[in-house]
């Protein structure tokens, strides 16, 4: 019984993290039909930027909660710089090409960002653990959890609910939905697609950078932190159905709980249980669990 509770709690924590990581990716795909392979690199930049900001702005006597504020500032500044630059500077020249071509373009961007990261931050690891000190540990039954982990759940809920409200209840969200259904007709109706694309891409970048910033206290930040992540978040959004925010939430929960079950029951398969879940889901439902509708074109 205790093991089941432990699996569920670990799973939900991991799922929250996965959701924040993956939702930006699915958002960008849903609106712009771009699978952004550079997502993992942006995540890493978010983590690095946090490390730099915390290193600059936080003396030894500063209160630890300040590092939480710095995380958000780091993510926002990464998004404000990289998002518009990549979308206006690079991606828009490739609009209208095949989805696969855009995937390869973002693959090139991944190479460029990786290289820039190595130049700016070098290859030695950074550690920013201050944020862990903000929260006490939490005891559930006989299990003890780091309080910071529950912040992840809160952030994931906030992001999910925020996106839902934005898409379903605000006029700007409705414009976005119109663009998702048909960019061409929306543009004919006077919606400024360029602006929406830039905004969406920047929002996606922000979410990736935020995920990186949130993760920064838990890992040693070094080259390669984003490499595995991109594949895991693909698995999540493909399970849920590409382009669906709700699918990403369900995918994150499925993957999170499967992984934590693997960690508790059969640790040796932990590494690839995520991919096995993905393959299994795609075998049954080739377009994921909540696929957007498509027309078969001749």
């Amino acid at each position, binding site marked *: 019984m205790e093991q089941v509770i432990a699996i569920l709690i670990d799973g939900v924590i991991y799922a929250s993290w996965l959701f924040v990581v993956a939702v930006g990716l699915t958002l960008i795909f849903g609106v712009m039909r771009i*699978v952004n392979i550079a997502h993992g690199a942006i995540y890493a930049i978010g983590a690095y930027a946090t490390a730099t900001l915390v290193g600059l702005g936080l003396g030894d006597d500063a209160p630890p909660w300040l590092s939480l504020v710095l995380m958000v500032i780091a993510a926002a500044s990464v998004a404000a710089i990289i998002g518009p630059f990549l979308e206006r500077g*690079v991606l828009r*020249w*490739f609009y209208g*090409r*095949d*989805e*696969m*071509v855009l*995937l*390869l*373009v973002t*693959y*090139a*961007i*991944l*190479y*460029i960002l*990786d*290289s*820039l990261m*190595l*130049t700016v931050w070098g290859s030695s690891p950074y550690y920013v653990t201050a944020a862990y000190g903000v929260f006490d540990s939490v005891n559930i039954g006989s299990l003890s959890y780091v309080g910071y982990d529950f912040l992840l759940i809160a952030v994931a809920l906030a992001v999910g609910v925020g996106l839902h409200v934005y898409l379903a209840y605000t006029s700007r969200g409705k414009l976005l939905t119109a663009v998702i259904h048909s960019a061409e007709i929306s543009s004919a109706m006077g919606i400024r697609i360029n602006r929406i694309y830039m905004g969406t891409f920047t929002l996606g970048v922000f979410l990736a950078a935020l995920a990186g910033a949130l993760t920064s206290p838990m890992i040693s930040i070094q080259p390669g932190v984003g*490499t595995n992540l991109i*594949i895991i978040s*693909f*698995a999540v959004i*493909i399970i849920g159905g*590409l382009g669906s925010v709700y699918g990403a939430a369900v995918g994150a929960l499925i993957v999170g709980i499967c992984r934590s079950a693997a960690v508790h029951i059969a640790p*040796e*398969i932990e*590494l*690839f249980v995520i*991919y*096995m879940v*993905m*393959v299994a889901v*795609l*075998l049954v439902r*080739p*377009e994921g669990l909540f696929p957007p509708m498509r027309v*078969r074109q*001749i």
Partner: protein
Amino acid sequence: MMRATILKWLAAAMLAIVAGFGLPGWMLLPLSLALANALVVLGLVTIIRTGGVSFGQALYFAAGAYAAGQVSRLFNSADAFAAIALGGATGLVIAAILAPLLIRFRGIFFAMLTLAVSMVGYGFLLNAGWLGGSDGMSVPAPTYLGYAPQGVWVTRSQFFLCAALALAAGFGMMALFRSSFGLATLAIGQNEIRVEYLGGPIGTIMWIAFVIAGGLAGVGGAAVALIIGHVEPEWMFWTRSGEFVLTAIVSGSTSVVAVFVAALFMEALHMFATDMFPNMWRLALGLILLLIIFVAPDGLGSIRAFRRFTTKRLGPSP
């Protein structure tokens, strides 16, 4: 037609022999690696012609490499030809088993599912103690039908092996691309549903393309394993597949010659750039890739100079 092909074949073979004897060892090594990688890319290009980009070729590549490493355990001698044959067969068989599952998918799903399957393989390798786990295993220096090269002949014979494989695969694939099968793959890539309505056996064609790619990747992996003398699970990691995709994008899928040129170019870039700017070579690679996608989306092979070498133009491009 036939005579021209034989002449080209002879010219290429002469070039390889001259290079093998004339060039110093430090140049033969990257050349051999480039040729071996070109085999993998040649297979990937065959898949790309059907419209899908596989992000999981590292699976068959690494499987071939591990198979080559097993040869010395199985047969008590590290024969290069046995290693290549076993490597190719391993890639082929794994691709033949996985193909029915994978070729049902298109576009991004195909890319991501091939990737996921290769990552399952990567996880398997990390846990497979009998294959050395995360340390990988060493591949003993190969012998050639009993002949054990010494000194500079070690590199030289590796180069000749790779060159022979490249010549065979290159001309074989050239013929294949021109055959009705090769044209059918292009037709599927352009409009699958029309081919289906015309009665083309789409499933079979895609299966064959995928299996050929798996076999070539296995051969390439075995060759690289013999050259490096070591194989590790990282060879199955998705970034390795990504490097093959990069090379395939640089080459494009219209020309066999372009594949070899692209592979040589990538190896040269890798060699010089890692030396001179270790941090920045990926930046250069990314920029080159962007430029190629923007200027020549069909790769080097779409440039006029290459077209002369290869297929006739197939009507107006879409």
